[in-house]
């Protein structure tokens, strides 16, 4: 049984600072090649299946660009 999570990125708020990438304990996030209208590379979920919704990325984000969602316990084995 494990909890599943998801991170929504608001592309126009992300400045590609990389703090969320460095702090995510499950290496869910990475900077993408895509840039926003200000020219910042934006963060993306590269291993979305690993996210458990711990919220550490959102706590470290200086720009409130990330919104974290979490499911109840899912039926899948860890």
């Amino acid at each position, binding site marked *: 049984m494990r909890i599943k999570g998801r991170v929504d990125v608001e592309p126009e708020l992300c400045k590609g600072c990389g703090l969320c990438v460095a702090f995510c304990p499950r290496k869910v996030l990475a900077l993408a090649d895509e840039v926003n209208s200000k020219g910042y590379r934006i963060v993306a979920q590269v291993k979305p299946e690993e996210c458990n919704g711990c919220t550490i990325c959102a*706590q470290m984000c200086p720009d*409130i660009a990330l*919104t974290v969602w979490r499911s109840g316990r899912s039926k899948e084995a860890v």
Partner: protein
Amino acid sequence: MRQVTAKPKALTNAPFHYCPGCTHGIIHRLLAETLDEFGLTENAIGIASVGCSVFAYDYFNCDMQQAAHGRAPAVATGIKRVRPQNFVFTYQGDGDLGSIGIGETIHAANRGENITIIFVNNAVYGMTGGQMAPTTLLGQKSSTTPTGRSIGEHGYPLPVSELLQALPGAAYVARTTVTSPSQIRITKRALAQAFQAQIQGRGLGLVEILSTCPVNWHMDPVEALTFINEEMVAQFPLGVFKDFDEEVARDGK
């Protein structure tokens, strides 16, 4: 799925203008969360200073005033005395509070003004291009100390929290940082206690928060957090320097 993080109501929808990775944004969020949790968002009056956080008046969803460089504690004093029913806070950098405004800071604390000061110490003048601040570390390179700050030429870094805790009018003084989720939690607890100092009419509450300036430190945002943990904390130790609650316990009041 349910949403487990959200922008605090005490912030407007204006995107922050801070440089990528600058922890001013984290500190804004923590302050806004604390305003919401205390139910003070409608009631609060904030004073923005001069520095990178000058536009704080665009970001906080409460009444805001902007003060001349260093004068935020004096402006806050006036507002709090005229409107004691309002919660009054300032948000100031180390150039603002520790250099041009050190007089206002010391006197507001010494008078025991019932105001709350959020003091963001990033060891440089961020807005104007990374010049030496009173809090620049010994040995630290800045645009005006290109070979590093030296005692002989520039004097010692100014320990604002250690100075203020000596004043009887200061009710709560703490130094924290935001370099990890656990440090962020400690900072939030300190903000809550600094709020309590004002709410309970105990005197001045100040939280000095060690913050990054990646651009002017010439570091990437992750390296800048490491710089705080390894270099800055060594010269500016973290901790609670004064807490009115401890005095209450000791004096039995």
